[in-house]
Structure formats: C-alpha cells, structure tokens
C-alpha cells in the first residue's frame, strides 16, 4: 500500500465500503441494547454508517483534525443513544475495530503509518467522548429547562384558571340575590356580600361589628342555637331555619337561614357559611293572604273558613267545655236586595255586621259572616246555656233600630237558630245543620225571634229539608235500590208478578221508604230521572226472570208512575225505549197510576197512557177508592186493572168481618168485572182476609200474608215454590 492510497482510500471503494458496513454492523450491535430509540437495529445501523465513514475519513485525513470526531459523539446523543454505556461501547468498538476495518490493513500494522493510525484512533476516541459529553450536557440542560418551563407554564395556567374561577365566584358572591357571609368558628364575620349588608339596613360595620351569636332575636325558635352549637362542634354539616333578625333601625328582618360548616382539607371544622334569604315581604304577604282567606271582603268579619276553624276548636275542646251558637238569617233581605239593588243591600249588610260585632265583645265570643245574609255568633264562655240566649237577645235588640242607608230608613229583622251543648258530641257539619234547621223554624214561626234546637224537630226537618238537597247526588251515587213485592193469583196462590218499590239507602239515615222521599222528588222534578231509572231497573229484572225462571209462566212487573211523570212529555218515548232496550214484551209491564192523579184528567193528559195501553202495556188505577172517583168515568180511562186501596180490606183482617166492607168490595169487584177490569187488592195480612177476598172474586193480591217486599232473588224462590 502506498501513501497515495492512504490519501485516496476511495481508490479501493468496494473494499472500503464493505468494511465500513461491517464496522457499522458491529457498532450497532454493541450500542443497540443500551439505546432507547424506537428504531430497529437495522435502522440504527443505517444511521451509524455515515458516522463510520466520517471516522474513517478522519483517520485518513491528510491534515489530521480530531475535532471532526466530536460530531460523532454529538450525533450519538441526537440519535437518543444517551446512556453512558452507549458511549463506552462506542469507544470500545472504535478502539477495537476502526483501524482494523478502516486502517491500512494488517500487513502494515507495524509500519510507522499504522503506528500513526492507532495514535489517530486514540485521539479520535477522545474527541468522540468529548463530543458526546458536550452534546449530552447541552441536551440535558435544554431538556431540564424545557420541563421546568413547562411546569411553570402549567402552574401559571392553573393560577389563571384559579383567578378566573375566583373572579367568577366573586361576581356570584357580590351579585347574589341572597345574603352570603362567612365567619370563623368563634362567630367573627370575615366576609359578607353587599346583599347581606343591605338586608340588615345598609351599614356594613353594623354587621361586621357583631359576632354571629349576637344575632339572637326574641322570636327565635328554641332549637336554633342548639343546632348552631352542634354545627360549630362539627356534629352537623348544615341546618336551615326560619329566623328573624333586628335591622340597624330595630325593625325586624325575617329570613330563611341556612348555615353550613366548611371544613379544612383535614376535615376539621374551619368556617361557617351563612346564607340568608329575605322573607320579610313574603311573610307579610302571607299574613295578608291568610287574613284575606279568612275574612269577608265586604264586612271585614271572619268568614266561613275562619269560623269553621274556631267552631271546630270549640266543639273538639276538652271535657266539661260547652259552646253556644247563634245562626242568624235576616228576614226579608232578599226583598231589599231585589227592590233597592245590591249596592244598597251591601251597605245594609256592612251596617248589620258592625252592629253584630258590637254584640260579641266578651272573650270567647266571635261573629262571622257565612255568606249572603247569613251570620253566626259563637260563644265559648263559662256559662254558654245562659250566654247564648243573652247573645241572641242582644242581636235581635241591635237589629230593632232601623238602619239608615242611602237616605232610607230600613227596618231589618232576623231569625236566629240557637245550638248549645257540650263539646265533643257532634261534628261542625251537624251543629251547623241543626242551627240552620232551627233558624228556619224561627223564620216559619214569623221571624224576629230565636228558637232553640230540638233534636226531634231537627230529625223531622231533616227528612224534608236535608233529604231534598241530598236527592240529586244520591241518584248519581247509586244510593237507590228496588225491592219487589209479589202479586199473587187469588184462585191458586201462584205468583203472578211483582210490584217494584224503590228504596233509598241514605248514608246517614239508613233505608228510607218511597213515602219519605218520593214527594220531595216530585217537588224538585228529580222524579223524572229517578222514575226512569226505576222503570229501567225493574224491566231489566223482569226480563231476567223471564229468561232464567220462566217455569211458572212469565212474571209481570208493576211500576209506579207519579203525577209529574205522567205530565212529562218524554213518558211514552222513554217507556218504549226501555222496553225495546230490554226486549220485554209490553204486555208484561203494568204501570200504576194513582186515582188522584187522574181525577179530572183531560184527553190531552190521557193520550200518553192511551198510547201505552194500545201497545199492550197494562195501566192500573192505584189506591182506587180514595179519590172520589167518578165511577162513570172509569169507562173513559185506558185502564185494565183496579188496585183496591187497603182501607177497604182492613175490616176483613179478623173475624167477624165488617159486613159493610164486604158489600162495598163486592160492588166494586162486580163493577170492575163488568167493565172488564181486573181487581187487585193490597194489604192482605191474614189468611181470613185472603179467603174472604178470594170469595168476593178479587183476581190478584199482595200483602204481608204472601210476602213482604224483598230483593229480586226472594221472589224467584217464591215463584219456584208455588210451581212445585
């Protein structure tokens, strides 16, 4: 090898490249295990190949400059071979293989040039190490600075975020509609917002100058400060109460107060957070609403609501307590209202209220307006039996003087019903009803007086007055039911049919018979829907019997028609609809009309009955013999049955029978039969009676002797029995 070959190693390019490659392979195998690079070993080798070439070139440079090798050390650091072991292994590989693979060849190893090569190699290693150390130092410092800067940046970001949050929270704190304050556990106020200061009257030092415990108020609920002590001790996290405070000026501030305990990071109690919602106005409003809800707007007297509360309290009072109640209704007020107008009527009521108010001034007395011209006065004094009459007399007394309204002298009188008695026996509703009934008694007796409640008289009034008002609801609630009394063939005693008798199962008074409520229903017109219901039910029942128990022949059904029903234009349509709806043959239905309802009936009134009779419906003349009938008239009526009133047969209950009765019945039966009318007798109670009537030729009968009215299944049993 000549010196020129040292200067121009590329003269043998193939051989050198191959050796450089092998050097790079060895190098990469040495350092790869101690690198953290994500490159593969082959990639690392590719990375090291140019570095190997640089080393080789430095080794052979005409002017030797080892500093070039510093680049090699730096390149290792750049390739993330930062582990000191990577340097150590690199130097080992350079030391052992650089001259071997990139030098002049083993033959010249003892040459001065080879000697020079090894010296160069050693100095190259020094430079690689220096370059590595320098680059690693620079990189380490750079990375340390970068991470420190990042940590600072993160902290500063967090501080700005905290600041932004604090700013927002401060805005919430200051702008909140509720008062917010923070105090330490000793009660020293540390922070408070504008709202809280304003709530207390606008002086901040007034709030700050006091400890939390100085905020007591005489109207504090007793447990407030107990709750507060528990919170300070850490036994509760928060509490919420309604609490009054004194403002700067001594006025009262009502609040919903919430106190919460704030703990430190170790969980120890640290601060108390106070939230105050000003409820002063709401409270006033509530009081006003409560007043308005319990007082009459016109007269300012307590209204029905407040009165009921007081009465409730009075009658549910302890033992030996009594109460007295005056129920006042003005006499003739309606006339004043109608003739002079409501405005005058109202002014009159205001004056009456004032006068009544002056009558009930003793403790335990009150006056209230229930509505319209109805007032009540209540006394719960020690001697109500005496006091309540006194009270009623005073009321009648103050009403005696004429009342001047709009320049007129109006004379007003009143009727008073008094209820007096021991507490704990009756409900408010019962007391008021009794007072109302008694007041009506006073009114019927001419007014301008008081009457005292009497249980017996009440009961009688109830059947008239109370039942009338309860009737419509009773029909809706299904309180009516029907009992059936059998009609029996007199010749063989078999069941011919039944009369439907309506009953009212009254929730308070029990089962009521038709004579107790039918006149009332007549009076109010409720008889029409009630009658329609009875017809429907009875026809449905008859149909049921026909379908299920026709063994003894079809059973007929008798249904009563009241005078009002008779006049009702829907009678025929309703009846037809009911029959068609059920499928019952018209001939199985008999409508019973009282004789008195048909007295003087003109053709117009008889027309619907005639229509029904033409369809095949039987019409029976009920209570025959009580209404001074024009017997000649019977021919004209669309009637097929006569029901003989029980008064004719009463004389035959026991032997010896009254011969006059026998003659009369005999005559009627003969007359009826000659007009082709069947005769039914009512009120048969004994066997003797039955036998006598059978002999007289009556066709059918009903009465206790055969069966009392009962539920529909009883009739069925009876019918089966006679079929056997």
């Amino acid at each position: 090898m000549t010196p020129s070959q040292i200067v121009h190693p590329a003269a043998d390019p193939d051989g050198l490249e191959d050796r450089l490659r092998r050097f790079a392979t060895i190098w990469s195998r040495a350092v790869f295990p101690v690198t953290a690079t994500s490159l593969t070993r082959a990639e690392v080798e590719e990375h090291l190949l140019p570095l190997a070439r640089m080393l080789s070139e430095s080794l052979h440079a005409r002017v030797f400059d080892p500093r070039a090798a510093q680049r090699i050390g730096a390149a290792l650091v750049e390739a993330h071979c930062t582990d000191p072991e990577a340097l150590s292994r690199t130097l080992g590989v350079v030391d052992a293989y650089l001259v071997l693979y990139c030098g002049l060849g083993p033959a010249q190893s003892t040459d001065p040039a080879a000697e020079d090569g090894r010296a160069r190699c050693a100095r190259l290693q020094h430079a690689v190490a220096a370059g590595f150390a320098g680059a690693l130092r620079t990189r380490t410092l750079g990375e340390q600075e970068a991470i420190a800067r990042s940590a600072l940046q993160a902290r500063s970001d967090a501080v700005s975020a905290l600041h932004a949050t604090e700013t927002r929270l401060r805005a919430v704190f200051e702008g909140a509609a509720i008062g917010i304050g923070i105090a330490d556990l000793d009660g020293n106020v540390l922070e408070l917002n504008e709202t809280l200061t304003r709530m207390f009257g606008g002086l901040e030092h007034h709030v700050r100058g006091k400890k939390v415990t100085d905020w007591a108020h005489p109207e504090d609920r007793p447990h407030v400060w107990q709750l507060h002590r528990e919170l300070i001790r850490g036994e509760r996290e928060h509490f919420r109460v309604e609490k009054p405070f004194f403002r700067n000026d001594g006025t009262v501030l009502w609040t919903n107060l919430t106190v919460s305990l704030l703990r430190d990071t170790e969980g120890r109690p640290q601060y108390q957070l106070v939230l105050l919602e000003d409820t002063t106005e709401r409270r006033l409003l509530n009081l006003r609403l409560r007043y308005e809800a319990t007082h009459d707007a016109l007269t300012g007297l307590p209204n029905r609501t407040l009165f009921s509360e007081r009465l409730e309290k009075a009658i549910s009072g302890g033992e030996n307590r009594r109460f007295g109640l005056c129920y006042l209704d003005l006499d003739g007020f309606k006339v004043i209202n109608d003739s002079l107008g409501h405005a005058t009527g109202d002014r009159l009521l205001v004056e009456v209220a004032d006068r009544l108010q002056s009558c009930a001034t003793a403790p335990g007395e009150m006056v209230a307006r229930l509505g319209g011209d109805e007032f009540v006065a209540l006394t719960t004094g020690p001697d109500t039996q005496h006091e309540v009459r006194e009270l009623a007399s005073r009321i009648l007394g103050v009403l005696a003087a004429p009342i001047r309204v709009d320049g007129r002298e109006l004379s007003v009188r009143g009727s008073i019903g008094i209820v007096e008695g021991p507490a704990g026996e009756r409900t408010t509703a019962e007391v008021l009803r009794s007072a109302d009934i008694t007041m009506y008694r006073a009114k019927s007796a001419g007014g301008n007086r008081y009457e005292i409640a009497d249980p017996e008289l009440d009961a009688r009034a109830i059947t008239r007055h109370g039942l009338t008002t309860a009737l419509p609801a009773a029909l809706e609630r299904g309180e009516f039911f029907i009992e059936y009394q059998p009609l029996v063939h007199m010749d063989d005693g078999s069941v011919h049919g039944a009369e439907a008798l309506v009953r009212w199962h009254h929730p308070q008074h029990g089962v009521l018979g038709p004579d107790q409520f039918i006149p009332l229903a007549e009076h109010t017109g409720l008889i029409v829907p009630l009658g329609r219901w009875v017809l429907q039910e009875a026809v449905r029942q008859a149909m049921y019997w026909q379908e299920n128990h026709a063994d003894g022949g079809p059973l007929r059904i008798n249904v009563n028609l009241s005078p009002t029903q008779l006049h009702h234009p829907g009678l025929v349509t309703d009846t037809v609809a009911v029959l068609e709806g059920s499928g019952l043959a018209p001939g199985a239905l008999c409508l019973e009309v009282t004789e008195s309802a048909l007295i003087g009936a003109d053709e117009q009134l008889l027309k619907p009955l005639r229509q029904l009779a033409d369809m095949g419906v039987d019409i029976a003349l009920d209570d025959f013999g009580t209404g001074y009938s024009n017997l000649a008239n019977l021919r004209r009526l669309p009637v097929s049955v006569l029901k003989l009133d029980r008064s004719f047969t009463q004389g035959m209950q026991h032997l010896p029978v009254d011969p006059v009765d026998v003659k009369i019945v005999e005559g009627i039966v003969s007359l009826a039969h000659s007009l082709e009318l069947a005769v039914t007798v009512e009120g048969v109670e004994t066997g003797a009676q039955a036998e006598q009537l059978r002999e007289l030729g009556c066709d059918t009968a009903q009465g206790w002797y055969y069966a009392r009215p009962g539920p529909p299944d009883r009739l069925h049993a009876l019918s089966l029995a006679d079929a056997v």
Partner: protein
Amino acid sequence: MERPVWAAPGIDISMPSVSRMHDFYLGGSHNFEVDREAARRVLALLPGLPKVMQANRAFMSRAVRYAAARGVTQFLDIGSGIPAFGGVHEVALKADPDSRVLCADRDPVAVAHGRAALGKGAAAAFIAADLRRPRQIIDSPEFAGLFDPDRPVALLLLSVLHFVEDADDPYGAVAELRDALAPGSLIVINHAAYDGVPVPEEQAARAVDVYREIRNPLIMRSQDHIARFFEGYEMVEPGLVSPPDWRPDAPAEQEDPYAFTGFAGVGRKA
C-alpha cells in the same frame, strides 16, 4: 372530595408523574429528581423496563405507518405524555406529510411541554383532557378544527389504559370513543400485563406497588380483559400479541426478552 376544576392533577411537581418517569426510562431529562427517584425504585425491580418502553414505541411507529399506508391520516393520541423523540406526531408526519395529530393528556405539565414542542402548526394540537371523560375530547374545538368527522381516525391509546382503574370505567370511555369514530377508523392499544415479564410475578408486583404509592396505580390486565377494549372492531392480523410480535419489520427473535412484556394490537371499525 371532588378536586376543584382549576386544580388539575400533576401541577404538584413534588409528586412523581408517570409521564416524566417514562421520559426518564427512555434516557430523557424532562424530569425532576422526585420522578427519577420513583423511576429508579421501579428499575431496581425491573431493570429491563426501558426495553419494554422501546418495544412499545416501536409498535407505535409500525402501527402509525400501517394506518398511514391505509389512508388513515387523522391521529388521535390520548395519553401522549411527554413526547421526547420519535413521538406520534413525528412518525405520522414522516409517514404522510398531510397527517393531522391531536394529542391529549391530563398531566398539565405534559400539556404545556407538548404545546411548546408542537409549536403553532395547523396540523397538530395538544389539549388538556382526560380519557375518563371522552366527550371532553370529542367535543373539543380542536377535534372539530383538525379532523373531518366523516373520515376515519386512528385512535391511539398507548400505555395509557393501564393507568385507568376499573372504577373509572375505562371500557365505557373507550366504547364512547369507538362509537364516535367513522367507519374505517383504527384503534391502536398497548397495555401492561404480567404476561411476558422475564422476572417472577411477585417481583413485578412490587414494581406495580411503587405506582400505587405514588398515587398513579398501574393496572395489570389479562389478555381477555385487554381484548374487550376492541369490542365491535375487527382485529387486524396478527391480533392481540406481545408488542414485538405485531407485524415486525425484522425478525422479532433479536429483541431483548423484556420487549415481549404486555400486549399490543390494532382493531378496525367495519
């Protein structure tokens, strides 16, 4: 007590951070003594740990190149940590210069560092977000700004799921992410496991204890449990394997024994 919103975890640099420990394992200096102290305790038990990291990063490189080769150039890297060198961003841009990369981490120091490192390019962003709250990421303006939601995304969950405890429902979070991505999207996961660790499991468990002590528990999961993160996606060949066995460039036998620790895999949304 719930941590206030402004007090993100990791601000307290007197506590070790797994991001900075990771950097130290890889020979970096983006760390503080407290990190190095913890890392040295781990290294005493698992001296070859850097090789695990290296194998995982090599897997990441191959997976990113795999994605880019299939036209998936939107990369969502959650739990990026401190990308000292050869990070997702670097590899992706090298594989396809049009790549978009969104990095996310809940460690604010890592975020600050990541932002400084990424600079203000239009193709990459780094956000402070938590994997446990996936909507923070999907609904972020950066996500909307960088990605076309109709095109597939490569979701990279690299060495991050093993820092999410079951109590924080990592399966729910990953499912939400999977469901949010367009068909053709890829999910790239590597996860720590006792499988393949070349030391007795008891010794590895003591290393795991160190992470619990620094309040950043490391959750070792079985292969079956790790496979559940891919639910609904088709596994790309060769499936869920040790990191060096996933589509190696060179024969995997040459690797350090530590490299075969844990599992790695890629799933694809049909």
